[in-house]
Structures are given as structure tokens and as C-alpha cells.
């Protein structure tokens, strides 16, 4: 493991930290423009964050340490994912410490922390948001693990570097049905996990339709900043992960040169910007699904993931 590989991993963390609010701002901007508005600008989430960090911290009476700790756990687990997944370079020093299953586990750890915080407030909305969030998380899990399964078939491993390297070495596998189906399935679960339309509406003001927002109604000031920041980072990391799982071009190797790291940084930035833009543009055309139709969506994505595995099992075997 070279010093540059470590530096690349650190750069990933810093990049996600700095870039996540910009990604969110960019997505809002795309949406605003398509709606005919001018929009607040790409830097708006950064302004909001800086402002929230300067505001008073509030401890709602009756809440416990869970409420106080949850934002840090969400943010921490996301930062850790950012350090593990290959965004800029393959050779993250933590690559052998957690594979894709581990990453999924960390993702859920963050979700659970926030869910518990929602319950901990003891308000009706907090409980409601938590209940919905955990229901969706529980139903997402089968799809996400099956998609991981499908992805791990070509490379023969669930370790991220191995998957990405396998795709980079055999780009023709990308257009196989298994890979395409896995992509769609993974895209759906990422939309569900990050609380985007049509599963959850991130900009709703109506408590009764909320999922993610309802859990964090009690957070204020720096804690709120951390939660918002973390959810932006989550989106950014997952978009970057999907981008590199299916389009690993430009990523630096496990023993990179300085130039390769730079190219990797530019490549991942471009990929994330494009994906985020597409996602935001797509959201303009769809409405939120009724909560009890979300299982249909998730069952569909489960089916796609299952088809992805069977397809890569039965079609992927090389002809002798």
C-alpha cells in the first residue's frame, strides 16, 4: 500500500465532505431550472450548512444520548464508506477491512442510528418517520444484497476493488443482461435508501407525507447541519459507488501515480455530476408513490436483482 493510495483514500473523504453539499445544490439547481425558476445556486446548501453550524444547539427535553449521538454516527459511517469504496483509486487501505456487504452494513448502521433518534424524541412524527424508514430499509435489504451478489459473480468476490477491477478489465461484461439488470435494481434501492422521489420527497413540508424529514424534525443548529450534510454525503458516495461499479473508467489503480489520482478525481467528479444531474432531471417527471405502493417498487427491484443473478449465472458462463 503506497503513500499515494492512502492519500487517495483521504482525498476521497475530503472530496465527499466538500462535494456533497455541492451535489445537493446542483441537483436542486437542475430541478429549479427545469421548473422555470432561477434557483438558489449550487452553493446554497453550503451557505445553509455554515449558517446552521453557527446556530444555537437545542436539546429537546426527555431525549437521551441516542438522540445526541445519532447525527455523528450517520455522518461517521458515511465518511467511513467514503474511505472504503473505490472512488478515486482502487487500493484503499481499508479495502480488505470491509467488502460490499460490509458497506451495506455500515449504510444500515447509519439508518438505524437515525431511526432510533426519531423514536427517542417521543413525538408522533418522529416515530412515524422512523417506522416508515425502517420498513423501507427492511424491504430494500433483499434487493441490495442480491444486487451485490450479481455484481460479485464476474469478479468472483464481493470486495469492491475486485469488482471494479473485474469490470475495468472486461468492459464487455457491462452490456450483459446480468450487469444491466443489477444496475437498474441498484439504482432503485439507492433512490429508496437516500430518500429521493418517488419513494420519499426530500423537499416536502407536509409532515404526514414525510419519511426522512419526519425523523429529524427535532434537530436544530449544528446537529441538523450534521444530519443534512450526512444525507448529502450518503447520496454522493452511493452515486460515486454506482458510477464506478458500472463505469470504472479513469479510476486510478491500487498503486497509483500522482497523475492517476488526479485523473481519478476528475473522472469521479464528472461521473457523479452527470448521474446527479440525470437523477434530478428524472425526478421532475415523477410524483411520490403512496407509501403502500413502495413495496411494489421494491418487489420489482428484487425481481430484477434476482434475474440479474440468474442471468449472470446461466448466461455468463463462458462457452467452451
Amino acid at each position, binding site marked *: 500500500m503506497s503513500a499515494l493510495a492512502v492519500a487517495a483514500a483521504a482525498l476521497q473523504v475530503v472530496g465527499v465532505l466538500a462535494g456533497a453539499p455541492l451535489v445537493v445544490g446542483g441537483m436542486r439547481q437542475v430541478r429549479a431550472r427545469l421548473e422555470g425558476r432561477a434557483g438558489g445556486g449550487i452553493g446554497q446548501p453550503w451557505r445553509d450548512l455554515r449558517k446552521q453550524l453557527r446556530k444555537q444547539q437545542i436539546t429537546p427535553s426527555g431525549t437521551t444520548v441516542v438522540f445526541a449521538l445519532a447525527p455523528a454516527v450517520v455522518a461517521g459511517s458515511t465518511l467511513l464508506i467514503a474511505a472504503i469504496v473505490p472512488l478515486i483509486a482502487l487500493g484503499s487501505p481499508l479495502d480488505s477491512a470491509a467488502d460490499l456487504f460490509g458497506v451495506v452494513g455500515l449504510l444500515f448502521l447509519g439508518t438505524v442510528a437515525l431511526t432510533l433518534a426519531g423514536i427517542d424524541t417521543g*413525538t408522533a412524527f418522529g416515530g412515524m418517520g422512523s417506522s416508515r424508514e425502517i420498513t423501507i430499509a427492511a424491504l430494500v435489504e433483499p434487493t441490495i444484497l442480491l444486487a451485490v451478489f450479481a455484481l460479485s459473480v464476474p469478479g468472483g468476490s464481493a470486495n469492491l476493488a475486485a469488482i471494479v477491477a473485474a469490470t475495468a478489465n472486461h468492459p464487455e461484461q457491462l452490456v450483459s443482461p446480468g450487469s444491466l439488470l443489477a444496475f437498474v435494481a441498484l439504482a432503485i434501492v439507492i433512490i429508496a435508501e437516500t430518500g429521493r422521489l418517488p419513494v420519499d420527497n426530500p423537499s416536502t413540508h407536509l409532515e404526514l407525507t414525510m419519511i426522512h424529514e419526519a425523523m429529524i424534525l427535532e434537530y436544530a443548529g449544528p446537529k441538523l447541519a450534521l444530519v443534512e450534510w450526512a444525507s448529502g454525503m450518503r447520496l454522493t458516495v452511493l452515486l460515486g459507488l454506482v458510477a464506478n461499479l458500472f463505469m470504472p473508467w479513469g479510476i486510478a489503480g491500487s498503486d497509483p501515480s500522482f497523475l492517476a489520482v488526479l485523473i481519478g478525481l476528475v473522472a469521479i467528479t464528472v461521473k457523479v455530476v452527470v448521474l446527479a444531474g440525470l437523477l434530478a432531471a428524472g425526478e421532475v417527471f415523477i410524483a411520490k408513490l403512496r407509501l403502500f405502493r413502495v413495496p411494489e417498487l421494491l418487489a420489482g427491484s428484487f425481481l430484477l436483482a434476482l434475474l440479474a443473478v440468474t442471468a449472470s449465472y446461466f448466461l455468463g458462463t463462458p462457452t467452451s
Partner: protein
Amino acid sequence: MTTTIDASPAAPALGEGPRAARRSIDGPALSGGLTAILGAIGLTLGLSVIFGEPRQLRIGWLLPLVGVRLDLDPLGGVFVAATGAVAIAVGIYAVGYARREHWARFPLVTLPLFVAAMLLVPAAGSVTTFLLAWELMAATSLILVLSEHRRKEVRCAGVFYAIMTQLGFVFILIALVVLSATGGGDAFTTIAANVDNLTPGPRNAIFLLTVLGFGSKAGLLPLHAWLPKAHPEAPSPVSALMSAAMVNMGIYGIIRIDLQLLGPGPHWWGLTLMIFGAVSAVFGVLQASVSTDLKQLLAYSTTENMGLITLALGAAALLTSSGAPTVAAIALTAALLHLLSHAAFKTLGFLAAGSVLAATGLRDLDKLGGLARRMPVTTVMFGIAALGASGLPLGAGFVSEWLLLQSLIHAPHDSITLVALAMPLSVGAVALTTGLGIAAMVKAFGVGFLARPRSAAAEAAREAPKSMLAGMTLAAAACVIFAVAPALLSPALQRVLAVLPTVGGDSAGPQIDTILRLPGVAGSMSPALLAAALAIAVLLAFVLARWGGRHRPPVMVTPLWASGADSLSPRMQYTATSFAEPLQRVFDDILRPDTNVEVTHFAESQYLVERVSYRTLMVDPVEQRFYTPVVRAVTIWAQLVRRAHTGSVHLYLAYGAAGLLIVLLVAR
């Protein structure tokens, strides 16, 4: 036995005086201490067998004709050690619990006996000894379940348990009798030597019967329904013993008889185990996620985890028979590790639930809440257990579930269609189980311990006494080891895997070091590194949150935001029922809850509603479909047999004589 003290607070004061004078010995301390000592002996013995030579013991005089035969090998050693470890924690805990709950003499005496019986089962070296120990275990546990026999539910659960456990015993009895008859001997070693003479017919029959019988002990579907009834109704230390140690005996039976003695079977054996496991896991966790009774939730989670273990065993068997021993070794390691970690977190879970029960008298999650401020240590303990049960990173169950998933995705898929079809579906089942398990545990921990108390009893809760906390701390320490440093257990697991025939000696299973590496396939993970890195990352997040801190006004404590109203009452909180309602609706077709909505209109106009009452009752659909008929049949049968019971001693003597005659005639 009649000195049972009622739960009413006045009774102990009356009963304590004369009893204390009569018996100077401290019953709870003696019983708990004995249990813990037995546990310590079991743990030492188990470990010594795993790392040393197998031990044998023959007591010829104890049983006529065959004698008692104890052979402890590394496989049995694991189970003895696990049971012992659970017993240590439970024994220490029971001292405080029995005092607080004023246990009668009978359960106090039975508790160590129960542990002794459980230690004997995996040590048994012959069919007779095994059956004897098995029955002793069943009987003692039944007595313990009935400790609070004054309550109707307890009696009902007891009857259910008695019938089901004996039904399971009948299956095992028939299977083992056939096995020893065809195997030409009573001792397992003799049978193992002759097992190749067995024709496929009896072999398959024995397999199916034992899977059913042992499965009923392990709480697998469809013979699981006694478990969520009996485990919650038993006193909590007993629940912990049953859910963390006794169910393991079912798994032990499957490994010993089906995988080791009958040994590598056809493909469908593995597949059968996988289906039993997957169905039990999903069903168990689904029931747990909608359950509102804290102990019942834990009991259903036991069914879930036993299902996962059986699934792993089945995968190991299937992979062995398809010629992939290295991956099979991973699956088997996953099964063993999950068994052990489940023992740890389930002990802790039940002990913590027991503390809550003792402090509040409540098991109903809808009435709990706010315990985090009133019972902080217990809350932390339950949190550790719940994290373990949910299979998330930093939890005790994560490593084993990770191993299981790895073994499933690395199964060879190009040769055998069955494997290629079973593995994706199994991954789906395991994933759904984990997902719902997270939901169930979030509900148990969040609704039960966080937020504000939902009843006066929960409001008045006080922290548990020291000995209970000490017992829980032991179990929690075990959980932490499983979560962060499973490498410590690696040497023991390697030794056990080496003796298991399905896997074979040469493929020694995954290397569990600081970084877990899988042999033969690419895959690695490190729980310790992950924990450390996460700690650093969380600290980093804290540092980030301090940015701009000097501009901030001081921290303010304010009441909850009540949407403008003055205050929120605790009744406005989400309860366990409402928390699980979306899941219940999603899985309506499987759970089939009994819901009832009654709308009362005003007499003047049917457009004005006077009252709406909504009632929903979660019933176990399997229980309703399969059990009620069985129980009814048993009752009818009992009624018939009753007719022969006239009360006349002469007639009974005549029955005996007639029976003897028939036996003589048949055996002639």
C-alpha cells in the same frame, strides 16, 4: 414446595420471617451459584476437550443393560462449552433475580438440574444415554416453565410445550431406535462404523424424522409454535437458558446425527435443511417484527436465528455433496459462529428483558418506554444484544452472517442447477431476514427503552440489583468479543471443523484473524479494523460539528416541539403496534392478523360517528392451521383413553397383566 410466595407485596413480609428462621441457607445464592459452578465446569471441560484429547466416561450400573456412556469430542465440546458459558451468566444473574422475584424452592432446585441435563446431552456417547439426557432436559425445562403456574397463560404454555416436546421426542426416539437397530449397537461409535450398511430407505426416514424432532427443539417451522409461547412465559433466566442453550441442542442433534453419523447425504438433504431454515428464519423474523411482547419478540428471534443456522448447515451439506468442501467449510463455520454468537446475544437479551420485567412487571412494549433514563445499564445491555441480533456491523451477529453470505455467493454454480437456483433464493431469504431483524430490534430497543414511559409502571422503574447486572455484563462481554474480536475464537473453531466429517480435515475453514480471509475464494473483512475506523470517523464527525462553535449561543434545553401545542402526552408517541403497522400491512397475506373495526354512529345521524374501535390481534397462522387440529386430536384421544380409567384398581391391574401377556406373546 408449598411456600410459594405470591407476587403481592404484602405476602413476602409475612412469609419471609418463619422461612428465614427455618432455613438459614440462602436458596437463590445456592441455586444460582451451583448453576454458575456447573456452567464453569462445562466451559472448562468443553474447552479442554476442544484443545486436548476426547474424554470418555462409562457408568455401567446407572442404567440397566446398557449403562451410561459419555463420550466428549470437540463437536460436543463446543456445545458443552457454550451451554456452560450461558449457565455462568445466567447463574450469577439468577441470584438477584430469584431474590427479587421470590422464587419457590422447586424451581431453585430444578435450575441447576436443567443445566446439568443440558451439559449431558452433547456429552452422550450412546443412543440410550442421549435419549435419557434429552428427556431429563425436557422434563426439567418443563418444570421451570411452570414456575409461575398460578397464571393461566403459563399453564397453557406449559401444556403446549409438554405436548410438542414429547411429540418431537417421539420422532427422535423412533429414528434413533431404528438407527441403533440397523447400526448394530447402542454407542454412536459403533453406529458410525456400521452406518454404511444402511439402505437409502431407512436412512432417508431417519433423516426426515430427526430433522423434524430436532427441528421442533430448535424452534424450526412447522413445529415451532411452542417456543414463542413457552420461552416468554418462563422466568427470564430460564428463558435465557432455553433460548440460548437448549435450542442449540436441536442443532447439535442435526449436526451429530444427520451430518456426522448419517453423513454426506444426497443433494436433497441439504436442500431440505435449507428450506426448513429459510422458511423458519423468514417466518420467525416476520412474527418478531410485528410482536409487541418483548420476550415473545426475542423468542421469535430465536426461531429466526435457528433458521439461519439450519440454512447454513443445509448449505454446507449441499455444497459438500456437490463437491465444494472449501465453501462448505465457510458455511459450517458460519453456522457454528452464529450458534455461539446467538447464545451470547440471546442470553443478554433475555436477561435484560428479565430486568425490565422485574422492574416494571411489564413485557408489553406498548406500555414500556423511557427506561434509558431509569435503567441505564440495562438499556445499554439490551442495546448490545439488539445490535447483535440485528446483524449490523459492530454487532455480535455480523461476522457469522457475513460468512454465511460469502459461502452462498461463492457456491460453484456451473455444474449443478440445484445449487445455482438455491443460492440466490437463499441470499434473498437471508437478506429479508436481516432487514426485518433490524426492524424488529429497532422496535424492541427504540420503543421499549427510549422515548418517554407509556405507563405508570414504566415510569417507576428502578435499575436492577448488582448480581443481575454482573450476569448481564458477562454476556455483554461475550457479545463484544464476537462483534469485534472473533479472532480470539478462531483456534477453537478450527479444531472443531477439523473433526467434522462433512467438511473433512484438510480444508480447515476460513482464517479468522484480525482480518478475516476466506480460503480458496476472494473475500476479506475485518470487524476490529472496521470498529476502529468507525470510531475515528464518528470522532471526525464530532469535530466537524464543532466548526463555527464560537459563534453559537449557549445550548438550550426546551420542551419537545408539539406543533404549537403546549405539550405532548406520552400517549401521542408511536407504540410498538403502530411502529410495526406498515410492515404488518405489507406482509398482510402471510401474517393474516385478526383485525376488527367497529364504528358506532349517533342515533340521530349515521354521518356522525360516535365511537370507532379498532382491534387487531396477531395470531400465529401456522399455529392456527396445524396446531389446533393436533391439540384437538390429542384432547379427543385423551377423552377416549379416559373411558378406560374407571378408578378401579383391579381393572388397572388387569390392564397391566393383559399388557404383559401381549408383550410376551409378541416377543416369543
